[in-house]
């Protein structure tokens, strides 16, 4: 053990160790179960490849949507102050703490055939239910708060001084955004986007409730894992390993970026 830090009582190590074990042990247990010898065939079966590609595709589109919709929200929240702003922020962040299955129900009652917008969409010839669009909607719904939260934090930390200077030098708001603000908060934007991507990749509850489950159309990696868990546990564990690796890489990546400056 290293030299004792003055603010770290020894007894604190016990709950810390238990907590760490609680997180690490299940991951170890999962990795121990991985059928290493048949990993290749399990990960390249047609259903696995379809699920993996669908997950990557939908998560990429969702992340893009999160950036397009989330950056304006974050800017608005960070650069204004008005009555009810706290409430607005809370509302935008609700999907963060909402059980995903509840999010799925809410989406169903909005975009479903008998939902709020269902009939309008039907008239326009758009059917969201059971389509890949539904998967993207569900993922964007749950991932948007991650991007808004981390970007708003970065914007507030960066402050408005450079923007004010640029404005006095004659730059229009759009130029300020493009030339000053975004370059300044780029690390925050990137880590927010990476988190949103990871959350989209792992989305399960809202997708299952709202989008259904069909190979190549709506059955993403987590849904495939859930299905295979009954039929072929080895395949489920092999696919789970893929998501664990992605999760570890994402978390490690965003952590490292934070320690850089």
């Amino acid at each position, binding site marked *: 053990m290293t030299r004792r830090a003055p603010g770290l009582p020894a007894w604190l*190590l*016990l709950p810390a*160790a*238990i907590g760490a*074990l609680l997180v690490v042990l299940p991951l170890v247990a999962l990795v121990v179960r991985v059928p290493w010898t048949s990993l290749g065939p399990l990960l390249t079966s047609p259903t696995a490849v379809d699920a993996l590609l669908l997950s990557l595709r939908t998560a990429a589109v969702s992340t893009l949507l999160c950036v397009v919709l989330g950056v304006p929200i974050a800017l608005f929240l960070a650069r204004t102050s008005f009555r009810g702003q706290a409430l607005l922020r809370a509302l935008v962040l609700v999907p963060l703490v909402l059980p995903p299955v509840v999010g799925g129900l809410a989406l*169903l009652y909005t975009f*479903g*055939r*008998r939902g709020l917008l269902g009939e309008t969409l039907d008239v326009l010839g758009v059917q969201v*239910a*059971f389509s890949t669009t539904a998967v993207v909607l569900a993922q964007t719904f749950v991932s948007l708060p991650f991007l808004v939260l981390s970007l708003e934090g970065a914007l507030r930390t960066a402050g408005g001084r450079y923007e004010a200077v640029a404005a006095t030098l004659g730059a229009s708001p759009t130029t300020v955004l493009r030339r000053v603000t975004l370059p300044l908060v780029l690390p925050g934007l990137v880590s927010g986007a990476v988190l949103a991507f990871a959350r989209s990749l792992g989305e399960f509850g809202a997708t*299952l*409730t709202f*989008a*259904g*489950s*069909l*190979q190549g159309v*709506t*059955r993403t990696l987590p*849904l495939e894992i*859930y*299905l*295979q*868990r*009954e*039929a*072929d546990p080895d395949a489920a564990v092999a696919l789970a390993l893929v998501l664990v690796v992605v999760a570890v890489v994402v978390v490690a990546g965003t952590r490292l970026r934070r320690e850089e400056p």
Partner: protein
Amino acid sequence: MRRALAVVLALGLVAGCSGGDAGRRTVTVLAAASLTEPFTALAERLEEQDPGLDVRLSFAGSADLVAQVEAGAPADVLATADEASMARVPADLLDGEPVTFATNRLQVVVPPGNPGRVRTAADLARVDTVLCARAVPCGALAHALLDDLGVRVRPVSEEQSVKDVLGKVASGEADAGLVYVSDARAAGDRVETVDVEGSEAHLNRYRLAALAGGDAEVARRWLDLVSSGEGRAVLRDAGLGAP
């Protein structure tokens, strides 16, 4: 350090597993989710007949139940929704041979008002139909039945469980789905049903067995109740067929 951790973990486990006063007896039944209604009714009757006996019911998908038994879950009775699941339980974990105590068959369910105007199984090829995935028992059965009838359905979704299929139909997202008769009955007026010709040829057999690690006496009480006339009547009311 390591020892302290072990003690804390052990205490946690003991605290989590103890409970129940002496003198009272408990029969723990692991049962397939589709048995929720009839088994709950039977448990109430048994507890009424014998106030000293507690019935603890734990419902899950049959595959999950088998996994729980293999992992050593403390229970006295196992009831699966199909033969294949029960067959996967190693013989030394069972106390005696499993018996078939009920059957179930498939039925088409449609949202109230039948927006897709589904009259026969052949209509399933025409409307937005939801089935169970092939990998789960209800999906294997549905595909076998449809193959038999020569109906080629391209489902809009292949769900993980019967309840998921039911949910998609009851909410009106899908025009039709294939579920068990018992599930359709439990859904009440949230769905309408259409009988499928030939569904009797594809029966799902519910299997029941006492578990080797459990209390053989209380397990026997439950097995006897389920196969009694009273038990049969409750199962029949839930839409399940005779074995």
